[in-house]
């Protein structure tokens, strides 16, 4: 069902100045709403007149609060609510029911406190129901998760994230703090990654874009590629003025611009401006939800050659040695990134690239 990964709206400067870390890495299944999802809340009052820890007197209050938080980051659609709905519950009835239940439409629960079920037709979500387990002890509180008492707001916030089409980043080769991880744990509200996901799917400005892996992982790939060429393929050294980190950082940036709707010239101009520290740019547009298009190999190679010249002639960097020729450099970095944006973890992506280098052909992606 999953189509591909997406993400981020990390400020470009942060991307480049941060050290080892995690890239935002939200995941969505593809379909999205074309109109406002109207949720029929059927959670009722808190039994015995108890006031929840956060002051709520009905379960609908934290549910509405969760939707309001998502709404802050969506332009094209907004959650709407029908309070205390008496609509009949059921999937396929055209109503987006949110309610307590002892089963998932007749099927037993399995570990999780809530499930979201969403129907799509083609690229459009047509209905979504949220079912919360009425056999558990619930409250609504902020802060770390407490043993034995489930926080309703963060769980329903997670399920509403499914309603808008997001899925679990940690189930798709990503490692990031997010309320949308399969278990929110101590994360009690939206993180930057969750917000990027909502913005990607529903922001008019298209602040979302395709995300690339954390720098430490990309650098690890480039280092392993060097070793592979030197020790595995027994390639000789050639001179380069671009150090390993510069190579992977700027090539990744070039590819990131390209897959986010920048032309070759736009991407190269942006990267060189970053190198010169003369500007910070956004990406060039919102990408299609169906595919991530990498540039043709000749253009990537042109960029790599231009980068070499920039380091040598403008930055006056000293000469170094590499066993990876320019073509191998751009081809395999691009392949590594292609696997990563298609759901493969760092380790699996490296494994697949090296299988290609060893002549085993293009490997399947991890979607």
């Amino acid at each position: 069902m999953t189509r591909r990964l997406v993400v981020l709206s990390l400020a470009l400067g942060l991307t480049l100045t941060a050290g080892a870390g995690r890239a935002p890495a939200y995941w969505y299944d593809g379909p999205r709403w074309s109109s406002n999802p109207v949720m029929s809340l059927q959670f009722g009052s808190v039994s015995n007149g108890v006031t929840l820890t956060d002051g709520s007197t009905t379960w609908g209050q934290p549910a509405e609060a969760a939707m309001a938080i998502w709404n802050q980051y969506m332009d094209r659609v907004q959650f709407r609510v029908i309070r205390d709905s008496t609509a009949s519950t059921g999937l396929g009835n055209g109503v987006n029911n949110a309610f307590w239940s002892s089963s998932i439409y007749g099927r037993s629960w399995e570990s999780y406190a809530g499930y979201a079920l969403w129907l799509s037709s083609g690229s459009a979500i047509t209905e979504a129901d949220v079912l919360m387990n009425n056999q558990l002890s619930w409250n609504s509180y902020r802060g770390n998760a407490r043993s034995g008492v489930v926080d309703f707001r963060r769980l329903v916030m997670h399920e509403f994230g499914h309603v808008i089409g997001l899925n679990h980043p940690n189930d798709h080769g990503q490692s990031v703090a997010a309320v949308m991880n399969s278990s929110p744990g101590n994360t009690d509200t939206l993180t930057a990654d969750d917000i990027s996901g909502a913005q990607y799917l529903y922001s008019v400005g298209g602040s979302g874009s395709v995300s690339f892996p954390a720098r430490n992982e990309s650098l690890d790939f480039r280092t392993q590629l060097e070793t592979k060429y030197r020790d595995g393929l027994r390639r000789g050294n050639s001179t380069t003025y671009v150090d390993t980190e510069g190579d992977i950082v700027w090539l990744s940036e070039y590819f990131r611009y390209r897959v986010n709707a920048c032309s070759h010239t736009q991407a190269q101009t942006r990267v060189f401006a970053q190198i010169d520290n003369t500007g910070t740019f956004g990406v060039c547009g919102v990408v299609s939800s169906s595919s991530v298009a990498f540039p043709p190999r000749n253009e990537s190679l042109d960029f790599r050659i231009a980068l070499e010249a920039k380091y040598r002639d403008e930055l006056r960097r000293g000469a170094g040695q590499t066993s990876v020729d320019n073509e191998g450099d751009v081809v395999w970095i691009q392949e590594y990134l292609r696997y990563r944006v298609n759901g493969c973890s760092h380790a699996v992506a490296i494994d697949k690239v090296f299988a290609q280098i060893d002549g085993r052909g293009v490997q399947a992606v991890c979607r």
Partner: protein
Amino acid sequence: MGSSAVTAALLALLPAVAFAQPPALDLGTLTFDQLAERAATIVVSTVTSRRSEWENYGASRLIVTKVTLAVEQTLKGSAPRTLVVEVLGGTIGDQTLHVSHVPSFKVGDRDVLFLNGALHAVSPVVGSDQGRFRVMNEAATGNARILDAGFTPLVSTADIGVSAEARPTGLVRSMADAVSLSDFVTLVRDRVRALERRQ
């Protein structure tokens, strides 16, 4: 139905009162021991086919997918050589039912599966999706390795049940770091035997 009956019916739908006893159901991430203990059957298997169909439940119209597994090894319980499991969700034509936390299987997937044995659960896998471990062959050596559901190399069974936020940052793991299938099978068998002795 009278108003008192309606009230009673509605109350029955409400959750346990806040601050009540801890739930019997473990939430969130499950440890290796919990997975092994809860599993009715543990198999090493490959998906050979899947078929989605409509199912009516009350007023609901659901899509369920029947997944056929070729069983290589049974590590707990008993299983036929060909096993059919059912997951809620799937695609028929251009209609897709997405269900959170429920694993998606495709033909050719090779996994170690901790199956709950439930006849009519949202997922056949313990922990909904947590009891699924991917088996992938390392390209360089062909060795079968274990990865978690998110394709992250599983280095130790102690990592199972550790939430994403609790994992160390900046850690780079390779396929070669992952526990091998044969070692994982041994670990599972050992754990199952230990559980049996305890009972």
